[in-house]
Structure formats: structure tokens, C-alpha cells
């Protein structure tokens, strides 16, 4: 049993079930990110942990105490909201200590807690200001401060960075990560941004359509996505998915794909179990970084296949150059070194790292290999 236990939780509005049998056990000190597109149920799940929405069936417990029907303020949790939800009529200091005041904590203790947290977040000079006088980043800090002062068992974050501009978002992301590493608190964090999910979490729950599609460490999610949805949702640019046919050449399974010129190319699989699929159609998933120029290919890989194909578009992005080409009748994106010698319209040698390839069943969309 975890520190925070979500077991078989379902949520329905009327007859419509929006969250289906969610099971997640979070250990103490874990940073769990719930990620998925809007409407996937991630915020509903977070609100159920907070007690802001009823649990239709199943149960949630924190530290072994069942939380179903317990008032939000009695769960010893704290929440950071997307809009920060700072009380506009109170000063920063009052905002941060309001929860303690409501819980009947005496003034001297409140001031002590406030001073500690303000120091930690470096917002001591803001304590007498009103939220309206703060910048976005400062409000974000105050919102976190308000959560920290409570010293809760679990921190809940509801898309806390999505109202910040791009640069500030990256800074705050790092700061949240540092804070977590320092304080070792248990965090459940909701976002739609897969980069946030990858960088912050110790574990990720990828959600879609009210189901947890996959629960695992960032590496597991990235390298071995359990289905097509997870594969394409996590990672940017998204994983290339191309139709392929499995054929046996000299007893070794190969993926047969058509290149841009309509000819068939064979790529050797590293995964032995692909022999079971001989003669069948599969979907081949190749991340952009596994499709690159030969000089930039992963030297540790034992299975690099080079194939010549026409370059459609190149998009230099500074650190990398993204190259679009057509394989298996779909546009695929390759990630190359910034100074690769590539030009649009030309033929080019693409290096495919087949060790990193992921294969899916086209019918069930589940992962077959690795």
C-alpha cells in the first residue's frame, strides 16, 4: 500500500463515466505527474484527491487513512492552482497564512512558518504586497509558498506553469524540481505538457479518455510506450509511426517499408520476438532522434541501418536540424545535427537506429516489441 493510494477509482457524471478504474499507488517522496490531453480526466482525478469532487466508486487514502467523503481541509493536502488562486484582497503574507489561521494555528507559529517559507522561496520582500502588484512568476512563488507553509502530506499541482511565458516556465520548472529534491515531499502534478512531465517526475501516468494508458518512470514511458497513444503523445517532435511488413531474410526478421521512390527497403529488427510476426503487417515506431545522419548516429548501437531517401523539407532549429522525408507513404521527421550537410530535394543517407525501434500491433495499437 502506497503513501497515497488511489485504488479502483471511478468518476461518473450522471450516466457518463469519465474516469475508469484508476489504480495508482504513490510512495512517500515521489513526484507523480498526471499527463494527457485536455479532457482526459487528469484534473478530475486531482480534484478527487483534493476532495473537491466526489469519488463515484473506489477509494483514495493518504497515509493509510481513507479520504472518501473527508472535507478537503481535513486531508492535510495543499494545492497550487493554474490561476494561482491568490486571494486578491489579502497581502502575500495573509494569503500564505490563511490556511494556518483557518486551522487555528496561533499567530507566533504562523509568523514563524511564514518567515521560513518566505526565506526558502526568496519572497521575503513581497510579503506586504497584494497579489495584484506581483508579476506572474512572483505569484507562482507565492502560490507555492501558500502550499508549503501548510507542511501537508501531499502537494497537488494543477497545471501550475501554464500561465507563465515560455522562459519563465522553464525557470520555474527547474525551481520546482530543486524544491522537490530538497524537501522530498510527495507531489501529484497535473500537466498537459509532456516535457514538464518528463523533466519533473519520478513517475508518470499518461492518461487519455479517462483511462491511465501507462504508468511508469519517464524512461519507461519514453523508451517502451505501451501503446500508440503514449508513443505519439510523449516526445516532441512526436514518434514517427510508419506501416511495415515483417519478412524473414536469412532467418532474421526484417521490417519492409517503402521509401520515397516507391521501392521496398528492409530494416533488420533487433528484437528476436518479431519472428512471430513474420508475414504480418505492423506499425513501426521510430523516434526522430533514432533517424539521423550517419555521422550523428548512436555509436553504441549495434543495429544502424542506412537508407537513402529524398529530403522533402529541412527546418533548422538551432541545436538540431529537423528533416522531413517520406517513408512508408507517411511524412517522417528526422533529427540531425545542426551542421549536417543536408539540403531539400536531394537524396540523403538516413541512419535508422533499429535498436530503439518500437513495434505496435496495428489492430490493438499495443506495443509488441521491445
Amino acid at each position, binding site marked *: 500500500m502506497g503513501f497515497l493510494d488511489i485504488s479502483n477509482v471511478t468518476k461518473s457524471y450522471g450516466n457518463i463515466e469519465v474516469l475508469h478504474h484508476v489504480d495508482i499507488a504513490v510512495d512517500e517522496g515521489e513526484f507523480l505527474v498526471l499527463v494527457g490531453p485536455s479532457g482526459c480526466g487528469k484534473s478530475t482525478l486531482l480534484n478527487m484527491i483534493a476532495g473537491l469532487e466526489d469519488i463515484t466508486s*473506489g477509494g483514495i487514502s493518504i497515509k493509510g487513512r481513507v479520504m*472518501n467523503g*473527508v*472535507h478537503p481541509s481535513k486531508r492535510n493536502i495543499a494545492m497550487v492552482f493554474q490561476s494561482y488562486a491568490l486571494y486578491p484582497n489579502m497581502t502575500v503574507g495573509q494569503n500564505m497564512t490563511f490556511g494556518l489561521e483557518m486551522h487555528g494555528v496561533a499567530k507566533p507559529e504562523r509568523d514563524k512558518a511564514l518567515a521560513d517559507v518566505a526565506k526558502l522561496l526568496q519572497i521575503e520582500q513581497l510579503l506586504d504586497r497584494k497579489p495584484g502588484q506581483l508579476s506572474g512568476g512572483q505569484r507562482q512563488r507565492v502560490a507555492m509558498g501558500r502550499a508549503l507553509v501548510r507542511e501537508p502530506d501531499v502537494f497537488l499541482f494543477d497545471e501550475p506553469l501554464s500561465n507563465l511565458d515560455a522562459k519563465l516556465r522553464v525557470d520555474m520548472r527547474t525551481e520546482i524540481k530543486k524544491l522537490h529534491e530538497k524537501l522530498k515531499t510527495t507531489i501529484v502534478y497535473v500537466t498537459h505538457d509532456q516535457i514538464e512531465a518528463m523533466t519533473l517526475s519520478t513517475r508518470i501516468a499518461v492518461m487519455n479518455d479517462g483511462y491511465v494508458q501507462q504508468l511508469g518512470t519517464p524512461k519507461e514511458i519514453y523508451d517502451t510506450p505501451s501503446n500508440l497513444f503514449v508513443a505519439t503523445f510523449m516526445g516532441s517532435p512526436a514518434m514517427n509511426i510508419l506501416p511495415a511488413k515483417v519478412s524473414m531474410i536469412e532467418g532474421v526478421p526484417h521490417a519492409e517499408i517503402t521509401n520515397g521512390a516507391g521501392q521496398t527497403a528492409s530494416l533488420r529488427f533487433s528484437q528476436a520476438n518479431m519472428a512471430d510476426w513474420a508475414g504480418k503487417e505492423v506499425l513501426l515506431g521510430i523516434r526522430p532522434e533514432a533517424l539521423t545522419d550517419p555521422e550523428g548516429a548512436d555509436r553504441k548501437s549495434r543495429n544502424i541501418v542506412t537508407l537513402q531517401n529524398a529530403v522533402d523539407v529541412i527546418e533548422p532549429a538551432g541545436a538540431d536540424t529537423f528533416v522531413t522525408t517520406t517513408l512508408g507513404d507517411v511524412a517522417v521527421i528526422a533529427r540531425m545535427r545542426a551542421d549536417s550537410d543536408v539540403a531539400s530535394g536531394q537524396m540523403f543517407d538516413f541512419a535508422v537506429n533499429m535498436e530503439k525501434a518500437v513495434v505496435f500491433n496495428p489492430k490493438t495499437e499495443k506495443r509488441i516489441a521491445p
Partner: protein
Amino acid sequence: MANYASGADFRTKLQGWIPKLVLSPSIAMMLVFVYGFIIYTVYLSFTNSKMLPKYDLIGIDNYVRLWGLSTWWTAVTNLAIFASLYIIICTVIGLTLAILLDQKIRGEGMLRPIYLYPMALSFIVTGTAWKWFLDPGIGLENTMHLWGWESFEFNWIKDRNMAIYTIVIAAVWQTSGFVMAMFLAGLRGIDNEILKAAQIDGASNWQLYRRIVIPMLRPAFLSAFVILAHLAVKSYDLVIALTGGGPGRATELPATFMYSYTFTRNQMGTGAASAVIMLMTIAAIMMPYLYAELKEKP
């Protein structure tokens, strides 16, 4: 495994009830004093109540009688004339003033409150002022005569056929500024980039307003219509103060008809029937509007 079947704790349950408890006095008042009373009046309209309520049903006699009364027909005709002129003139004046005020006018801050202040007055005050202003003996007509325009004649308020129009004038004076404010708010809400785009497309000022701006004011038109229409049906004070329903019964409206039939002529059943018809008129105007309004914001 833990048993999750436990219900909500006491505090959470209480929190669920408090909002409804807080709302309940208003809801109770509304159900009794508005909807209960409506049902009661509807019931009375089917009874033979005279000075005091009676509870024996007599069918639709009151409605038959009502529609046979020439006074009622006068009231209904007057309402039709008054309401249509009032709505149209207020809208035209309001829209015109709003468009003109929206031309970067110096002194807009001065003019706007001048157009609007009559709305703060009671209809009784408006009626008192206009009654006298329109009185041929001492008002406008007299002034024109004193200024040397001997043939000037303006005695509508004493004229059975024209008196209803004096009510329109006073009512327009009172409300058109408010309609102006509504349209002005609508105009200020239009994205300037759309206007710039239309100008780049080569629209003249006239075309700009006719083809782009006025169609975009649709919500303001709708609001203005609903407000004015319901004010027109409810108009009572102004008639009392300005003409007292006269000369004769020439400016009787359903609102004054209901009052005099119920309380001075002791024909409560007929009065109730007229009130029901007024309510139905308002409901026909308001229902679609309210429905759309509440549906938009679920």
C-alpha cells in the same frame, strides 16, 4: 483493503446543506409572492370577485367581458401605439446619439450624463414636468405665442386623439438616453481591427455602419427591445402623472385599466383577467430571451 463505503463526514454534509439553506428564504419568498400570487390572480380571473375575492369559478366570463369592453380595447390599442412608437423612437434616437457620440467627440464626458440623467428620475417627476411643459395655457404653446409665433399650436395633451403621443414623448425623453448608453457600450465593444479591415476593404463610413457595425450590435438591439417592451407594458406611473388616463379615457393603458377596475370600480375578477393578459404579454417577450440567456451560461 480499506473499506471505502463510508459516507461523507458531518462537516462535508453540512457544507452541502448550508448553500441551499441560505438560498431558501429568497426562493420561498419568490414562490409565495411571485408564483403563488400569479396562480392566485389567475384563479381570481375565473371567479366572480367584485370588491372582495370570491372563490366560485365562473369560467372564462371575465375574459369574454373584458374583450367586450370598449375601455379595454382603448387600453390595448393605446398600448400597441405607445409600445411600438416608444420602442422604435427610443431605438432610433439611442442608436443615432450613440453613433454620433462615438466619433471622438470632445465633451463626450459632459454630454453622456446629460442624455442619461432622466433615467434617474421617477416617472411621477417626469410626468409633472411634461404635463406642464405641454400644457397649452402656460407651457410650450404659450411661450411660442409670447415669443411672437402666434399661430403655433401644440395642444395634444388636451386632444383625445393625440394625448397618447404626449405619453410617448415623455417616455422617450426619460428612457432614450439609457438606450443610447446600451448602444454606446455595444459600439465600444466592437473590435477596432474589424473596422480597420472594412476600411481597407474600401467601405465608406455609411457602408461601414450599415453593413458591419449595426449588424454587430444585434445583442444590444435585442436587450434594448426586451427592456423597452417590458417597460412599455408595465407603464403606469407616467400615465397617472401626465394625463391621469385622460382626457376622458383616451390614454388608458392596460396597467391603469387593471388598477381602476380592481380598486376603484370593484370589478376584481375583470381586473385580474386584465392582469393575466399583461403577464402573458410580458412572458411572451421575456421567455425566449431568458431561455437563451440562461442556456448560454450553463
